[in-house]
C-alpha cells in the first residue's frame, strides 16, 4: 500500500509558511516602541499646519519650475522653504525617528538575509517604490 507523503512539505505549503512568517515579522516590527514613535511622528508631520503650508509653497515653486517660469527665483525660493521645513522641530524629530527605524530594519534585514542566503530588502525592492513618508 502506498503511504501518503506527509514528512516532505510541498512548495505551496512552504510558500504559505514564508508568507505567514513575513506577516508575523511585520506585526512584531509594528509593535516596537521605535516603530510606534516613528508612526506617531509621521502622522504628526503629515497633519502639522505649518508643514502643510510650507509643503503647499514648495509644490507651487516646483510647478513653476516644471513650467519653466522664473527658474532662478523659484529655485532660490524652493531652497529657502526647504530649509524652513528642515528646521522645524517636528520635522527634525521625525528625521531622528526615521533614522532609528532604519537602523532597526537594517539589523532585522541582516538576520533575514543571512538565513535566506540572499540580500533580502535589496532584492525585494520594487522599482519606483517610496516608503510612503
Amino acid at each position, binding site marked *: 500500500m502506498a503511504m501518503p507523503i506527509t514528512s516532505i*512539505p510541498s*512548495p505551496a505549503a*512552504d*510558500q504559505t*509558511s*514564508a*508568507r*505567514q*512568517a*513575513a*506577516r*508575523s*515579522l*511585520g*506585526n*512584531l*516590527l*509594528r509593535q*516596537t516602541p521605535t*516603530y510606534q514613535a516613528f*508612526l506617531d511622528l*509621521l502622522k504628526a508631520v503629515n497633519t502639522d499646519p505649518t508643514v502643510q503650508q510650507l509643503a503647499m509653497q514648495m509644490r507651487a515653486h516646483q510647478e513653476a519650475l516644471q513650467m519653466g517660469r522664473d527658474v532662478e527665483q523659484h529655485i532660490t525660493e524652493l531652497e529657502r522653504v526647504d530649509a524652513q521645513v528642515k528646521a522645524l522641530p517636528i520635522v527634525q524629530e521625525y528625521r531622528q525617528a*526615521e533614522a532609528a*527605524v*532604519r*537602523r*532597526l*530594519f*537594517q*539589523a*532585522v*534585514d541582516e*538576520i*533575514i*538575509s*543571512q*538565513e*535566506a*542566503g*540572499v540580500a*533580502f*530588502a*535589496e*532584492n*525585494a*525592492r*520594487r522599482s519606483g*517604490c*517610496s*516608503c*510612503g*513618508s
Partner: protein
Amino acid sequence: MDTTLQLPTALQEAASTFGQAIRAAGYVSAYLEALARCDADADAMALEQRFYDLYDELIARQQAGEALSQEQRTAFYNLRQQVQTHPNISARDEALAQLKPVLADLADEISEALEVDYTALAR
C-alpha cells in the same frame, strides 16, 4: 563607535524564522546554484570585472568633462554584450530576476503590516 543594535529576542527569532522559511521554500536555491557556478567560472569573473573597470573608467572620464569617443562607446557596448550573453553570468542574472518578484511579494506582507514600504527603510 559601536553601532551594533541589540534586537529584542522575539524580533531576532521572527527575522530568523522568516529567513529560514525563504530558504526552505526553495526560492533562493536556483539562484544560489547559478551564483556558485558563476563565481567558480574564472573567465566569467574576469570578464565581469573588466566590464566594471571599464564602466568606472568611462564614468570618471565623463565626470571630468571628457567627451567619450565613438570607439570608447563601441568598446563599452561590445563588452557589455559579452557579459550579458555569457552563459554563466546570464544564468545567474536570470535566476536573480526570477527570484526578485518572489521576494518583493514577501516584502509586501511585511509592508502591509507596517503601512510603509519595508524595503525603502531596510536598505
